[in-house]
């Protein structure tokens, strides 16, 4: 945890946009499409054309996964839950952070063996592969998963 916070401090990024959405799976597509549009605009300014589609899809899918995890792992007692999303950048790197008040979790979970036909457990694996770097932090009872990718 301490180590995570230090790493976070080594990553001073400028947050330019924030959202707070209901913790309801029907908002996942709004969150993921918005993330895709932000990535489109960001990479249109500073990105290489051929990598742009891949860059935008990475944010679309990573936010869909992180948002769904926030919704499906919410503590049942809490009402009026919200999922917070923030977009930050530094040079050609775009970061999206997804935060919730869920129980703490281990972000390093591995995907189960595909040949056993697992129906769950792919989300964090996808996020880690789509992004250049993923940081988890737990602070003040909130989980924050920060996902960073370079548009260059």
């Amino acid at each position, binding site marked *: 945890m301490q180590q995570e916070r230090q790493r976070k401090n080594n990553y001073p990024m400028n947050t330019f946009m924030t959202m707070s959405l209901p913790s309801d799976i029907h908002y996942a*597509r709004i969150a993921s499409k918005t993330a895709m549009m932000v990535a489109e605009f960001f990479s249109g300014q500073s990105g290489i054309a051929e990598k742009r589609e891949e860059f935008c899809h990475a944010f679309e899918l990573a936010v*869909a996964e992180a948002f*769904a995890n926030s919704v499906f792992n919410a503590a049942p007692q809490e009402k009026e839950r919200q999922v917070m999303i923030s977009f930050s950048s530094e040079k050609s790197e775009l970061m999206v952070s997804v935060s919730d008040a869920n129980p703490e979790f281990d972000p390093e979970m591995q995907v189960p063996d595909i040949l056993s*036909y*697992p*129906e769950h457990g792919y*989300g964090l*694996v996808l996020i880690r592969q789509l992004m250049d770097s993923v940081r988890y932090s737990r602070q003040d009872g909130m989980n924050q998963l920060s996902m960073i990718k370079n548009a260059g």
Partner: protein
Amino acid sequence: MTVNEKKCKGITIVSLNGSLDAASAPGVLNSSSALTDTQSIVIDLSGVDFLDSSGLGCLVGIARKKREQGGDVRLACLNEKLRKVFDITRASRLFDIYDDAEYAAGTAAKK
């Protein structure tokens, strides 16, 4: 998410359209009995513009149940974004994936 069925060479092709994701996946299985019964089918994904891990889990679940009962499922027409999901998760090892749904139905019929 809309679901359509047609027959080709005796094989049912189920076409999915829209986002196959955490919000829509739970409803897909109820929308077509061909997805859950024992017959072999082809799922045409040309109309699916977005797939997430819950959508993938849904397809994996269909494959497992079909194969346990002696049937099979083939997939057709995955765009770049969908292929990426299959490649990262190595789910491509679980499925025969075709560029054309009718061709996939033909190979299933011959088997």
